[in-house]
């Protein structure tokens, strides 16, 4: 039989046929050397087929199995291209050694595009067989849903889908969803983002995903809030302000049904600088201070986490026993020892109180000549006093001597709210202390179910630093491990990010149910953790554009590449330029700026008059109390918090008590004897 010409019209009048929308993209091929398996298959396509690494395809088998035509979904992980050329030398000979001659060749060699795909899903799932011969189609919306097993949680009656981005290939755009049960618990939880710095991937991805969670987290699953630790620069300092996004980003927002708006409710927390007057944050511009709250803790808050600040060399068993004693018996309790300072009754509530107590204990031991007090050796007491007293110095601005507390609203967290704690400018000790205490408090409240929300996402960047894989164990790392391993039962979800995933503790990243990968460094990709990825996938990872990420999720049997929009919030750099950090001001002016958040009518003159006779510690205490209470009458309240000042008065010399005049000195007696 002669197969007819491809068209009835003469060749000269013929145009390339337009492919039908449902035309196959390729055909499955299998050879003995390169067979198909249940998890991998190969197919070829036309040279101009719109496929590439990461494209999802559907295979329709040629023959039914058990009466059902098998359908297999896969994702392209490798691509090959070659011609019938057997040796490069043949090409050299063919063009007389001149590449320029190649352009004159009448015919291009026969060429193939051969792709390898990893199986995402078999339908039906049983019997699990090698991928059959058949036609290959580009996956469309419905195919993508089935291929990634999203159909299970996209059903209207049990929808728990959270859009993570849009999968694009060959003109198709399909939203890709994560399962909330596997992102925020209880089935699995936690998210880890990795990628090189400077491409706005890690922070942007988390901001976008939080927007998506807030928009799509089903009401039936309860409430959700986020606590973000801003550990560097102004990255998270302007989440409540709109950012610039382009039409393409808007289209992505629309496709994912997420409003392209900044976060509705954002509260910022930052300690003071060491002057205890200026907030230690890049969000200190006066125009933005209305939702910035100082973060200050006193002795009680810090002592509970003393081991965060005291390393193992500091805290041996003896020191630990004394700290426990102080925590249990001294702090916030009335303490009385007849031997101390004449039987003085102590009520230790601040570092200043504690130091006074220490001073009396040591003085007692010195006077008595003893070596121990209540079984605690004097050397241990001196050492613990030294270390604890030092905390308020090391964490100045966060820890106050006088015990003032200004904290996150534990117990009254609000649904879909973001609480940003800016620790970017703090010393490492202070950062660790804040992290340890905040996370511990979150856990405590979640265990008691009285936090105010059912789920809390905690975002920590620079996980390389806080949970390294090969560094000595620290309190913070232990806490991160604890969240990663047990947080999902409580609703405490860790969103973490780092540049080098391979350097993070394996149990932290291993317990992250979902992982996002931005552009990766080639050295990082060469580490064993990425051995499961094909060379082509690694190449794609190393060249990802801004806004592109690779997603691994428990429902996806293979990593998927998606594109996400730029977060609709002001970028840190833009915010820092538009709202520059407040300049350091004289004390009264700084005070005025703080109080003006509560009462805009306050003037510098009023402040100067109000604090004229008071010392700085007293003024700060009054300011802190006012900021904490947020009273209706700021002036009155502030004045009431200042200690009363007794007016100076002249003292008359007592009558009849005049001292005797000095004896006159004789001229011949130079020594006065």
């Amino acid at each position, binding site marked *: 039989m002669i197969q*007819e010409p491809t068209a009835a019209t003469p060749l000269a009048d013929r145009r390339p046929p337009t492919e039908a929308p449902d035309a196959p993209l390729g055909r499955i091929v299998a050879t003995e050397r390169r067979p198909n398996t249940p998890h991998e298959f190969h197919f070829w396509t036309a040279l101009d087929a719109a496929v590439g690494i990461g494209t999802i395809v559907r295979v329709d088998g040629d023959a039914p199995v058990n009466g059902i035509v098998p359908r297999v979904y896969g994702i392209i992980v490798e691509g090959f291209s070659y011609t019938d050329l057997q040796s490069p030398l043949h090409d050299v000979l063919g063009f007389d050694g001149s590449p320029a001659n190649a352009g004159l*060749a009448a015919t291009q060699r026969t060429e193939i595009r051969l792709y390898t795909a990893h199986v995402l899903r078999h339908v039906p799932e049983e019997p699990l067989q090698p991928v059959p011969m058949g036609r290959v189609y580009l996956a469309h919306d419905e195919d993508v849903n089935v291929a990634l097993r999203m159909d299970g949680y996209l059903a209207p009656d049990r929808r728990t889908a959270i859009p993570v981005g849009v999968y694009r290939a060959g003109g198709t755009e399909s939203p890709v969803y994560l399962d909330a049960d596997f992102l925020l618990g209880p089935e699995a939880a936690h998210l880890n983002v990795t990628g090189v710095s400077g491409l706005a991937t890690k922070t942007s991805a988390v901001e976008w995903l939080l927007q998506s969670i807030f928009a799509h987290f089903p009401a039936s699953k309860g409430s959700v809030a986020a606590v973000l630790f801003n550990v560097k620069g102004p990255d998270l300092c302007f989440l409540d302000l709109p950012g610039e996004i382009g039409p393409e980003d808007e289209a992505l927002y629309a496709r994912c049904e997420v409003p392209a708006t900044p976060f509705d409710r954002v509260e910022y927390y930052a300690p003071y600088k060491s002057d205890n007057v200026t907030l230690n944050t890049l969000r200190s511009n006066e125009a933005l201070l209305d939702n910035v709250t100082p973060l200050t803790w006193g002795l009680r808050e810090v002592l509970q986490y003393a081991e965060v600040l005291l390393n193992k060399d500091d805290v041996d068993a003896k020191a630990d026993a004394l700290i426990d004693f102080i925590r249990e018996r001294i702090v916030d309790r009335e303490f009385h020892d007849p031997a101390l300072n004449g039987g003085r009754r102590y009520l230790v509530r601040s570092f200043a109180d504690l130091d006074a107590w220490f001073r009396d204990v040591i003085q007692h031991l010195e006077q008595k000549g003893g070596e121990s007090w209540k079984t605690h050796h004097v050397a241990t007491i001196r050492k613990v006093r030294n270390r604890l007293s030092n905390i308020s110095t090391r964490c100045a601005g966060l820890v106050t001597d006088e015990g003032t507390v200004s904290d996150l609203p534990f117990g009254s967290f609000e649904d879909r709210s973001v609480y940003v704690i800016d620790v970017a400018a703090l010393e490492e000790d202070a950062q660790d202390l804040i992290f340890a205490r905040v996370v511990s408090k979150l856990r405590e409240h979640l265990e008691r179910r009285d936090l105010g929300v059912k789920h809390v996402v905690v975002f920590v960047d620079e996980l390389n630093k806080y949970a390294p894989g090969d560094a000595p164990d620290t309190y913070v790392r232990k806490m991160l491990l604890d969240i990663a391993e047990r947080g999902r039962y409580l609703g405490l979800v860790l969103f973490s990010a780092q540049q080098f995933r391979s350097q993070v503790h394996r149990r932290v990243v291993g317990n992250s149910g979902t992982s996002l990968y931005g552009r990766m460094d080639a050295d990082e990709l060469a580490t064993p953790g990425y051995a499961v990825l094909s060379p082509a996938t690694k190449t794609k990872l190393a060249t990802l554009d801004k806004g592109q990420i690779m997603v691994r999720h428990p429902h996806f049997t293979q990593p998927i590449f998606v594109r996400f929009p730029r977060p609709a919030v002001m970028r840190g750099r833009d915010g820092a330029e538009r709202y520059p950090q407040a300049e350091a001001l004289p004390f009264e002016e700084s005070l005025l700026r703080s109080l003006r958040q509560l009462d805009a009518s306050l003037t510098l003159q009023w402040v100067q008059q109000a604090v004229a006779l008071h010392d700085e510690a007293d003024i700060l205490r009054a300011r802190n109390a006012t900021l904490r209470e947020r009273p209706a009458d700021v002036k009155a309240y502030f004045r009431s918090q200042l200690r009363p000042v007794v007016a100076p008065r002249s003292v008359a010399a007592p009558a009849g008590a005049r001292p005797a005049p000095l004896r006159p000195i004789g001229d011949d007696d130079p020594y006065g004897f």
Partner: protein
Amino acid sequence: MTAASRPGALPAFQDVRRRLANLRPGAATASTGILEHATAAPDAPRIVAAQPIEHSSVGARRVTGAPAVGFDAFLDGTQTSRILDFVNGVAVVHGTVAAVIRVRRNRRMATWMQAVEQRLYAPRRALPEAYWDSLESLGLEVVDTSDDPPAGGGSPAHPFTLRDGAVNRVGRDRERLEVRLAERWCGVEKGMLFIDGGISGSERVSSAGCTVGVVKSHRTLYVEGDALTRVLALEAGERSTVLRIAPPKRHAVASWYLRLRDPAGHDPMWGLVRVETADLPVADRAAITERADLLSRWILAEAAPLALPDGRWDKMVYGIRDCEEFLRAVAG
């Protein structure tokens, strides 16, 4: 009946053997390779003098002008013969012939038309009647080679003679199939068709202006004496004077020799092809020269890319190799 259908639906040789074995237990057990590789004593080399029509004598002439792309399509055919069975020492041959026209679009090759046919070849008089009936029931056309002239002049009853005769018949069927495709091209298309081999077998093809045959084998030479010496001394990019070739039982064509590649260090036939095109009127010699130069430039333009690793790459153009690869894929 000729068994031919879409390439993917053709019964494989092993299927035909299996079916015959089912019909005649014990049959189709012989195992042989492809006969074209093992047999076919080639035709004896011949020299047939032809008449020059461009000039009075045969000489060498450099092709004027740079190589240029002129061909729109390429035609080639293949044949494969295998022993299906031996009956009383006589071979029953299974033959597959295929041909294809591959067109060039945007410098890439695509199929314009293809054909694949399968037949069985055997001398009916040498087979039991029942066996012949079995062959006919296999669903393939069975060709009786009883009356074919002995191949190579051998003894008619010699099994090898019979076998080679069958292979020759397969070859003729291939030629016929190629001619059918070429005639179809000439009826539909206006572009130039490059045919692997001569074109004198078909009146329509040999007289059409849209076909050019390029012959790689030189078992028959159409020049002799000094003319032969001059042809064998052609340098790369040179051609011979145009001749008129009119073989018996074939149609007259204009023909000339053309050297595609520098033969230095090779045998005298290396890179030498013979071009056949429609016969040209002797009266207009300038037109003959112009036509021969134009077609020669087109053929020289096909010298790259190389047809390697094919052993005939010095004479084979890439478009023909592409046809052969295509036929190897669809017809085995």
